[in-house]
């Protein structure tokens, strides 16, 4: 009985997220409350257990990185970078697509990719429009490549943070085990995007003079703050690289670096806190509580049995299975619930003697690459679509599927091939 109740609550919350009838944060909060009430009445889930289920490590790491981005955001640094790379392209559309895609990916490997896209996409619309190009291919490319690039690092993508925290993976683990695959997948995605957009990108340089009229210096509103935050971000990455030597947790690095930046800059704190994406943090906390209830009720045993049977064969086949299931679920609903739900399942497999290290990477690839297929697959996709609705060529769901699905398929295929052909890459 408790299993049925907890599954019903979990599935109703997912259905609300899927149908977008309520905002996903509200669905998660409502589901968490329902799970606690149900768990209290039937005695399978207490408030203490719920608090324990919330992965504070994940939330703290997200909060720290969000604070650093919130400090960088108003300086105009993102606009500055976008204009610089656009000028470097000298108005050649393909080159501009590659450069803007690359800078978005690079930024989203270190920063939250939602914020990166929120800041880069409007400048992209401006630059492409004044050049007489359609912003559409550029917006889709930026979202897809930032989703893909973010998979490469611990802090690049929220599912990675969740997985890293649960599995005890460090920043360097991601550079060793994930980055090589992501580099191949990213390059393949880029080539495929250029080919798919060959008609829109055809033609020579457009009005290079107009491009030279864009003054990156003017875009940078607060050079001193931008320099300071960039310095702290650089130090943050160094700390992550030396994480095992320093003996610090990922969340402590993020929060202490955010504190360093805050002490150095002493900005108005209310403005900084306004830029934190609280809805993301609340959504995550809600999901942790929901899945905690699912686990406490014994509801995850069904999945655990399935997974155990599936992983009885070769581990790379199990990894490929997890990758595709996660990817399809991420494309159709959201990558966070599936990640949060599969974490305890994989942990359970570990206790049964299954070699689970490769499975963590399968989960990360599935959650990261799967979101490319549909507009709702990732928040970055939603943001560029909303922005495109204000241009002359709005991006429709069908158009996204035609461009995003091939990218999901090729990136997931490359991930699968990596497990089948280079399994040692995913072993300790």
């Amino acid at each position, binding site marked *: 009985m408790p299993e049925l109740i907890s599954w019903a609550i979990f599935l109703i919350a997912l259905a609300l997220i899927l149908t977008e009838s309520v905002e996903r944060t509200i669905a998660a909060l409502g589901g968490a409350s329902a799970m606690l009430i149900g768990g209290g009445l039937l005695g399978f889930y207490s408030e203490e257990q719920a608090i324990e289920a919330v992965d504070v490590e994940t939330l703290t790491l997200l909060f720290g990185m969000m604070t650093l981005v919130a400090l960088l955001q108003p300086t105009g640094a993102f*606009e500055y970078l976008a204009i610089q790379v656009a000028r470097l392209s000298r108005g050649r559309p393909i080159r501009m697509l590659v450069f803007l895609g690359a800078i978005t990916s690079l930024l989203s490997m270190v920063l939250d990719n939602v914020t990166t896209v929120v800041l880069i996409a*409007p*400048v992209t*619309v*401006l630059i492409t429009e004044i050049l*007489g190009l359609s912003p559409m291919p550029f917006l889709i490319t930026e979202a897809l490549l930032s989703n893909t690039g973010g998979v490469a690092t611990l802090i690049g993508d929220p599912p990675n943070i969740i997985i890293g925290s649960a599995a005890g993976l460090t920043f360097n683990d991601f550079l060793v085990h994930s980055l090589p695959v992501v580099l191949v997948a990213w390059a393949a995605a880029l080539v495929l995007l250029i080919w798919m957009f060959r008609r829109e990108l055809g033609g020579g340089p457009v009005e290079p003079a*107009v491009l030279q009229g864009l003054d990156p210096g*003017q*875009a940078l509103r607060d050079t001193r703050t931008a320099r300071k935050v960039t310095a702290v971000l650089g130090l943050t990455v160094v700390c992550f690289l030396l994480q095992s030597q320093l003996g610090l947790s990922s969340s402590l690095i993020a929060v202490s670096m955010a504190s360093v930046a805050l002490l150095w800059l002493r900005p108005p704190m209310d403005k900084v806190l306004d830029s934190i994406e609280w809805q993301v943090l609340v959504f995550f906390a809600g999901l942790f509580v929901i899945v905690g209830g699912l686990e406490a009720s014994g509801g995850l045993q069904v999945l655990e049995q399935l997974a155990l049977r599936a992983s009885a064969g070769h581990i790379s086949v199990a990894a490929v299975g997890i990758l595709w299931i996660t990817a399809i679920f991420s494309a159709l609903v959201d990558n966070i619930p599936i990640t949060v739900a599969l974490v305890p399942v994989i942990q359970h497999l570990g206790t049964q003697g299954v070699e689970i290290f490769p499975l963590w990477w399968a989960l990360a690839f599935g959650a990261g690459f799967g979101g490319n297929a549909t507009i709702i697959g990732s928040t970055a996709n939603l943001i560029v679509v909303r922005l495109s609705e204000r*241009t002359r060529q709005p991006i429709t769901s069908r158009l996204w599927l035609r461009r995003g699905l091939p990218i999901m398929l090729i990136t997931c295929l490359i991930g699968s091939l990596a497990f089948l052909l280079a399994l040692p890459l995913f072993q300790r």
Partner: protein
Amino acid sequence: MDVGSVMKREVVSIRADQTLEEAIRLLVDKRVGTLPVVDEQARLVGILGLREILQLCWPTLLDMLGNYDFVRDFGVLERNDISAEDRAKPVGQLMQPATRVEVDCGLLRAEAVMRQHQLRDLPVVDEQNRLVGLASWVDVGVAFLRHRSLSQDRP
């Protein structure tokens, strides 16, 4: 002092079934920024401003970013035009609900209403909602100042 005594009484207006082309011609010929939309009985039914019409050729891009200092040249966007299709549309399709005040509205209240709704021109109506005038932000502000300095000049 009320808005009725500072407003312009000769107002260029348009009807909802006229085309945008006609509205554009009126704005250009009369050099005005706001066209109150009225029915046959001169009752105010909406408002059509320069802003709504320019939105058709100026991209919405102009409110996407917080900073445009770095753009020296808007390139091909400078040459945007309003399509023939848009020009043939009836005014009723593009007009906005009109914020209005009555003739006896005080100047400070007129200013507050304009501020709240971010208006430059305020249609003024009588009790039957018939358009009787249009008070601009400048009309209201200047009248307010004139009234103040005159009363201060008195011994």
